[in-house]
């Protein structure tokens, strides 16, 4: 499979192959240049299908190492995938998928917004255990911009797209990694409204958490220092691992905590503490497992991961790039979909690095 990562018009002219499919990320607010770039591409390659997703900030591309530290408004990964081996489907079609029938298609979901039903859909798609599921939630860049997804010339501020890839032609794999450990006992949410936790163990949520971790300052919230491990009510402990959910805000009057995820009464939280430096480095080194020189990758980096590590984030991503030794296109997401272990089902997380690797199978 041939590939190229394009970030400027000049790159189009240098494209050494005829792409059939492109997946790209654009900084929220940079929709127009992205669209213009896509149009230019389409003029050149009429049957090219383009899928896009907005990013909170930096688009990471690694054709050369230094690009990690460079900022660009968008990046597009062009591929010469077999036309019949990949397709784009919309929300209604995804929902109608007969999950009882074994499928040979991996699904990469791009959602413009977080919605609880997305979690249900991820679970439903995996009733066929052989189906790899990955994905990300589009991000905005502050209040002036809105997240969106893009397909064939149209931006969708509310929508869900699935990039389906035939697994008989392409190997689709990857994993999600976080750098926190769960600590202490599970705490049950006893009162909640959408994403807001009002009570934990029948006590005001904020009091309960601050009693354990100290004051939740604005700085600690914007640094995403205190995510929670969030186990859904009645969900098995070991099967998928427990996803992280980041804190969005606190309401001191109401003594409540709002997460970047919807919660329900009966869901359980555990506090999370950051990995030690050694463990964090060891985790980053896990990307070495995917040194697939024939493959290409997408890297979904949670805005909370960036927020937590601040200016160290590009350093860590450089380390990943050096470990992977294969090109990837990455962007900043509001949520990532991927498995926590080799045979684990994919789940929706916050605050992870999620790698999706695609390799053409030998004929």
């Amino acid at each position, binding site marked *: 499979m041939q590939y190229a990562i394009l970030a400027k018009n000049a790159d189009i002219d240098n494209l050494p192959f005829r792409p059939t499919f492109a997946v790209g990320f654009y900084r929220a607010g940079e929709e127009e240049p992205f669209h213009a770039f896509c149009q230019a591409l389409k003029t050149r390659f009429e049957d090219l299908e383009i899928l896009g997703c907005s990013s909170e900030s930096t688009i990471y591309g690694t054709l050369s190492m*230094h690009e990690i*530290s460079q900022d660009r408004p968008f990046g597009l990964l062009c591929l010469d995938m077999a036309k019949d081996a990949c397709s784009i489907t919309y929300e209604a079609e995804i929902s109608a998928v007969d999950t009882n029938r074994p499928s040979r298609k991996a699904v990469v979901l791009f959602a413009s917004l977080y919605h609880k039903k997305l979690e249900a859909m991820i679970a439903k798609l995996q009733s066929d255990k052989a189906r790899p599921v990955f994905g990300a939630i589009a991000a905005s860049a502050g209040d002036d911009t809105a997240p969106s997804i893009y397909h064939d010339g149209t931006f969708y501020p509310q929508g869900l797209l699935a990039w389906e890839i035939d697994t008989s032609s392409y190997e689709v794999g990857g994993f999600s990694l976080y750098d926190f450990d769960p*600590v*202490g*006992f599970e705490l049950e949410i006893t009162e909640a409204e959408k994403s807001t936790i009002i009570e934990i163990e029948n006590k005001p949520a904020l009091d309960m958490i601050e*009693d*354990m*971790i*100290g004051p939740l300052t604005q700085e*600690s919230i914007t*640094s995403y*220092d*205190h995510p929670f491990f969030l186990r859904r009510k009645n969900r098995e402990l070991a099967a998928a691992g427990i996803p992280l959910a980041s804190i969005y805000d606190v309401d001191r009057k109401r003594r409540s905590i709002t997460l970047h995820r919807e919660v329900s009464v009966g869901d359980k939280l555990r*506090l999370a*503490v*950051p990995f030690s*430096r050694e463990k964090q*480095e060891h985790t980053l080194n896990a990307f070495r497992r995917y040194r697939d020189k024939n493959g290409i990758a997408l890297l979904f980096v949670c805005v909370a991961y960036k927020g937590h590590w*601040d*200016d*160290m984030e*590009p*350093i860590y991503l*450089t*380390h990943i790039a050096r470990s992977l030794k294969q090109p990837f296109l990455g962007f900043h997401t509001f949520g990532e979909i991927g498995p926590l272990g080799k045979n684990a089902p994919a789940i929706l997380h916050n605050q992870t690095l999620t790698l999706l690797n695609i390799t053409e199978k030998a004929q």
Partner: protein
Amino acid sequence: MKELLHHDRETIVRRLCKRFDLEQSAAEGVVAKLQQAIFEGDESIFFDLKYLVHFRNDPDFSEAIVHCATETFSLLSAQEAYRPYHRQLIDFYFRFYKTIFIDRCRYAKKIEKRSDTVQRILKHMSEEMNQILDTQQLMIANISHEMRTALNAIVGYLSMIEDKHTLSGEEEGFLTKALHASSTLQALVSDILDITKINSDQLEINEETFWMDDMLAKCIDGISLELGKKHQIDFITDLDLFPFKVHGDRQHIMEILTNLLSNAIKYTDKGYICLRLTRKRIANGKIEARFQVEDTGIGMTEEQIRQIFDPFSRFKTDRKGIGLGLHITSKLAQKLGGKLKARSTFGVGSTFEFTLMLGEDPQAVDLSGKRLCFFCSRSDTLSAERKKKELLNSLGASVASYDTEEEFINYLLTAETDIPDLISVAADREGYAKFDALINYLKTLPRFKRTYFIAEMTEGVVSLRYFDKIYDYFVPLVPLIQSLENLHRDSEKEVSEAHNFQILVVDDIETNLEIFNMFVSQRYPDATIDLAGGGHEAIGMYKAKVYDIVFLDLKMPGLDGYEVLKRFESIRPLPTVYALTADVYKSTYEKVMEAGFSGLLEKPLQVDVLFETIDKEIHAKNY
């Protein structure tokens, strides 16, 4: 100028190669980035530095970078050619220090702050965890107590059925199995209770003065039944025979030894088990007592030895028990100030030992005027017998000994004067039976009326009726001497002297009363036992009758034990009143003693402790 002068580039490349062991091309790459940074404000060299410094995480490496940058800065800033670029050079130098120093400090500060929060969270969690553990331990302790009480009743009732011999055939088999299972469960609950008490620091260390050999004899008595079942094992004692009195926690030392001996029996099928005691005098009236149990059992591998004192580390699953025994034993030894050690060779055997510092009581033993006679026809015990005789002689006793049956019988039948105070027989199986019959006859003769007959080293293989005392494996000297001094005052006599002895038991649980009555009335048939099912009933009975001893449950509905005691005291001065409680905590002991109880017995009652308590009271009443 957009680049450094050629000779400067070369100088910097040379220095880089030397200091960082770089290849020429790599060093040239760095210099290219350096030029871009100085003249074009490009950031990539700082990004690379940040990456290297972070992942190398080596202060020497960072120092080398600072050296190199300073040298470069000096080299360039000193030259006239770069004067127009002075500002760019300063800006580069500032960005360099920001990257290598200020950014690192910011990062360190952030990490330090996060680390403080992590510490806080972990501290909170640890406190919470400890609290939960404490609560769980208390809960386990209470549940275990309740279970032990119930199990005691089950075992008690099953024993009663067994004693009545009403069942036969298959039903008798069922009963035996039920008894066996209940006893196993009882032991398990007891183990759990012990370990909970130790872990929650609720174990009472009760120090008392006791004769060491008496204590050892009781330990051996405790395991003689198990030992009797293993015919291919020799039980050997290598003990300091000289009778000495010590001050220490007798009960817990006995528990440790009994457990070690019991384990040795469990894991040994042939060969021997040896109980060894050596003592060393230390200054300030202290002695160092080293206890050792050696066996020729299955032994352990090095791995097994490493885990032997861990809870549940029972490696031989076909043996009884759940493996808490050695863990408890080791913890107990630790509580007593010792350390249990094990050494072993797989397939050869094991040795367990622990050393305790005990206070020594200088009380001397005087056997002046006592006449002792020993018969020993067994060659295997001759040397031990000889040692014992020497020791008794040194204590002032006059010792005669015989080793042939003919001579000994002749002596017994013809002796008219200087009749021994004690006659000891160590024979073979047939010999014991023969002498048992002879003693029956001798006891009818007036001259042997004050003679005490003991059988030694019977190994539990014979049933003897007329000997006053039978020692299966080890004869403790002190009890023997005490027997000589109080020939008619042994515990059996206490039992018969319980005539007119008044006992009141108060407990709201009927089963407890029944069990108490069953055991005590069997042992003290002449004693009167009154049972009260509650405080008010007990007060009524106390008003109507004077009791020698009262056993009073602390936790009862209505009037509790403390209140009942107060009411008793207002009626007349208190007799000996023991509190009965399932509460295992230290504070209860203190509270009970403060309230005016004579002592406390833990529920479920341990029968031997109960009998000891009653015996003491009967003895005090009669003498």
